[in-house]
């Protein structure tokens, strides 16, 4: 019964955008009907996702599907629930935010379309994490990719950057899907079916699991944005409407993590190098993701690279869990996987909060360029406060939620470092300091982001005219900020679900709270809060009586140009970027100053993406030139392409 509720939820969210198409374009009625439908579906979905875990709940559903090998089979286990919860929650909050941020009155053309794709995306995402049949999974996966593409390029008429971002996204996601076709082919060959069936141990030895794993890393890793497969992620997140970026970063890229989890759970004894590869990719994504983020001047690109970093942290937990399974250490499986899954939630919460905050800034000021902003905390105090909570949370600072999940990964890494086995302690010994480096760099990066955007003086005229965001935009952000505190203050409340998910993944008995005393995090959070409140109250009492008159910042005697001589995003990050210059290759064009009265000159610095701009684009260009003799098959007529497909199918049928 409960799983049928989920089906209703998927149906409701899926069709939620359709009524909006029939209302007058500028009327707010259409978007309200859509939002109510989607909201009902999401609440129903949230309820059923958790209800399916109750002992006697019917958690699976199967119906026929007239596709060879296909069946409409869905099942909800704890792993699905962990992913369903953020899907429905963030979709709901984003849709409320969209009522004001992307209202039909302001966007009469793209508004209804975006609602349609938003609903489809939500429904398809929910199907992806519940599909039992691999063909159903692939179908849902493809719908996700298309809805996401359409939502991302919804402003394609005016926005050339969004078009380019969409192009890169659609190429990357289809390359990923191609790898997944291969992967499911291997799975079919090994198990003889089209469902998530565990592999026999004999298949592990035959080498087909190696192909399975590598294709999964390629396909799911591209979706998740693991370095160096992340190329689509920064432009897509930067150019999508902000609530779409929030949903992409919070949920869509996590589908890659879900896929990796499902596939690796099929193998009872994964080889140890699987864990090593995932952990290594995690470290690479974490360190380079945050280092690239430091170099960005575009607020949303900066946030996008932090998604790469956080996917890295999640992969570190996942890699640890794989190592634990290979070496039969249940505590490492529990800590690594629980840390990864908890971080999936937490990243969903604080990154959506940050993207929504960035969206409010962009809507009110009209630019994403950090060096044109500044001083917004005085113009938009609530947005600034909420962004601050998200920034502290993403840095993994106690007592917020980012710390709680990183804490689990840390304990897992430290426990691995205690092991006799050389591979395990090497993993821990490399992983823990790497995570510390990532954490410190994240603190630097978000100090820069918050400091340059919200603090100091306005750098241009635009931010000085900004107004506070409205209630529909602030409301969802308040919910997310409260969740940052709740999940960080009482992480033990999530432990039973995480234990169940670890069990569903192939771990053992519930040992999480025994291994990681999450209750103590609540105790110290409370203690910290008390000390801060006492000292804060003292400072408040002592400084309540402000001195009269207007007082500026002490400026060392230089009275003029205070706003222009502030530290900018690039000057703040400069000394750190120099440490990473050997891999990031930042581009700096400095003017040569000559003579006693140098002419006005320009300084320019940017940090291009190492993989996309410095490797992939040149490589694709070269490949394209090398194959120019084949251009003639590209006729530009859709009939010709259909003919090619038909011919290929015929050849394949003859070949079998």
């Amino acid at each position, binding site marked *: 019964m409960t799983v049928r509720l989920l089906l209703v939820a998927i149906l409701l969210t899926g069709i939620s955008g359709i009524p909006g198409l029939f209302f007058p374009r500028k009327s707010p009625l259409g978007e309200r009907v859509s939002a109510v439908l989607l909201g009902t579906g999401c609440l129903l979905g949230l309820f059923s996702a958790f209800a399916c875990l109750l002992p006697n709940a019917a958690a699976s559903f199967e119906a026929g599907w007239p596709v060879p090998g296909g069946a409409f089979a869905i099942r909800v286990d704890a792993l699905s629930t962990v992913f369903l919860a953020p899907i429905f929650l963030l979709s709901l909050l984003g849709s409320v935010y969209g009522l004001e941020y992307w209202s039909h009155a302001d966007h009469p053309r793209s508004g209804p379309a975006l609602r349609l794709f938003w609903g489809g995306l939500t429904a398809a995402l929910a199907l992806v994490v519940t599909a039992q049949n691999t063909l159903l999974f692939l179908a849902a996966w493809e719908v996700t990719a298309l809805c996401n593409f359409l939502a991302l390029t919804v402003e394609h008429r005016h926005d050339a950057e969004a078009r380019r971002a969409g192009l890169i996204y659609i190429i990357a996601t289809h390359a990923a899907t191609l790898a997944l076709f291969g992967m499911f082919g291997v799975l079919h060959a090994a198990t003889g079916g089209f469902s998530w069936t565990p592999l026999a141990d004999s298949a592990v030895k035959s080498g087909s699991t190696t192909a399975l794993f590598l294709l999964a890393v390629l396909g799911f890793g591209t979706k998740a944005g693991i370095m160096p497969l992340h190329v689509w992620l920064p432009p897509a997140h930067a150019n999508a409407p902000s609530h779409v970026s929030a949903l992409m970063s919070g949920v869509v890229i996590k589908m890659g993590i879900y896929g990796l989890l499902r596939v690796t759970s099929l193998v009872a004894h994964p080889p140890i190098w699987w864990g090593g590869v995932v952990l290594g990719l995690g470290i690479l994504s974490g360190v380079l993701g945050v280092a690239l983020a430091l170099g960005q001047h575009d607020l949303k690109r900066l946030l996008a690279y932090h998604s790469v970093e956080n996917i890295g942290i999640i992969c570190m937990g996942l890699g640890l869990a794989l190592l634990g399974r290979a070496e039969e250490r249940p505590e490492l499986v529990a800590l690594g996987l629980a840390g990864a899954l908890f971080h999936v939630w937490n990243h969903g919460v604080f990154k959506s909060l940050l993207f929504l905050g960035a969206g409010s800034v962009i809507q009110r000021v009209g630019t994403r360029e950090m060096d044109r902003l500044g001083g917004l905390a005085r113009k938009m105090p609530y947005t600034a406060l909420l962004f601050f909570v998200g920034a502290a949370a993403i840095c993994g600072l106690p007592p917020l939620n980012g710390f709680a999940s990183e*804490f689990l990964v840390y304990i897992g890494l*430290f426990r691995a470092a205690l092991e006799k086995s*050389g591979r395990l302690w090497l993993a821990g010994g490399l992983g823990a300091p790497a995570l510390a480096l990532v954490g410190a760099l994240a*603190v630097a990066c978000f100090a820069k982001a918050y400091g340059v955007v919200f603090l*100091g003086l306005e750098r241009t005229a635009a931010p000085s005219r900004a107004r506070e965001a409205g209630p529909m935009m602030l409301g969802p952000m308040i919910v997310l900020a409260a969740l940052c505190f709740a999940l960080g203050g009482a992480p033990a409340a999530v432990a039973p679900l995480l234990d169940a998910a670890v069990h569903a993944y192939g771990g053992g008995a519930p040992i999480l709270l025994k291994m990681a005393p999450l209750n103590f995090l609540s105790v110290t959070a409370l203690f*910290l809060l008390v000390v801060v409140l006492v000292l804060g109250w003292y400072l408040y009492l002592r*400084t309540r009586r402000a001195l009269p008159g207007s007082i*500026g910042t002490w400026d060392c005697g230089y009275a003029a140009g205070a706003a222009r001589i502030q530290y900018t995003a690039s000057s*703040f990050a400069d*000394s750190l970027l120099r440490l990473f210059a050997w891999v990031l290759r930042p581009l700096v064009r400095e003017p040569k100053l000559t003579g006693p009265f140098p002419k006005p000159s320009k300084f320019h610095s940017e940090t291009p993406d190492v993989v996309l701009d410095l490797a992939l684009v040149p490589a694709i260009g070269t490949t394209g030139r090398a194959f120019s003799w084949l251009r003639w098959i590209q006729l530009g007529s859709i009939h010709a392409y259909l003919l090619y497909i038909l011919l290929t199918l015929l050849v394949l049928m003859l070949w079998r």
Partner: protein
Amino acid sequence: MLQTLIQVALLVALPPLLRGIINKTKAAFAGRVGPPLLQPYYDLIKLLRKDSVFSDITTWVFRAGPVVAAATPLVAGTLIPFGSAAPLISFSGDLVLFAYLFALSRFFTVLAALDTGSPFEGMGAAREATFSCLAEPALFLGLLALVRASGSLSLATMLGAGLGATWTTSGASLLMVIVSLFIVVLAECSRIPVDDPATHLELTMIHEVMVLDHSGPALGLIEYGAAAKLFVLGALVTRIAVPYGGANVWVNWGLLLVGISALAVVIGVVESVMARLRLIQVPSLLVAANLLSGFGIVLLAR
């Protein structure tokens, strides 16, 4: 209970004294009498009694910075064992919280500096953020070596009675960890050769330039927080270097006081005989600290 009370009392009351000892040492090297040993206390009292000036540009972050900077070392101090007292709060993995509390303090201090919109403070903030990115992994590598040597994930056990035995089995590693952590202390607490607390030119400062705009009680809280940070991190290093844990509780407290005073003297000596490094050379020093702890861990890989 009594021991815990002593611990809390020392944690709250002692930090400024360390600065007094450092300044006395430096004065002795320079052939001066120097300020009284208790001068940091007098300074604090003076600051707390003054009025504050707040720039119109600043927001609540500017006032939250000093509060968090004073609160976090006090909370972190309750996680490590002092003298004969067990830590107030102890659990498996508390070392992560210990390190991250300092990150929390840094986040607020850096933002409070950026809140003023002053280029000087932005400069200090950028430097602080840069150097701590290298100090943080060094701290974790040092703690990792202690984890590996003691087989435990809680600071109470890592620095507990078993530390004496660890010295006999893997003394070389511990020695490297001490040197590495000492460099971390110098960097995190803005001492020479990383930063010169007595410099008078904004362009060369790190910590001092970040707090230029704070005044009165807010500045007092910052000064107190900086002293407490030095005390807590110093107590950690002292504890490793002097693995006291005898039967007589009062001897243990005496050893703690002697040890931490000795650390302050060493810092004073370092400040007297060395010049501040050029800013672009500081990363090399911190990378060296990382490598040293790394070698310490490799030695433990048996």
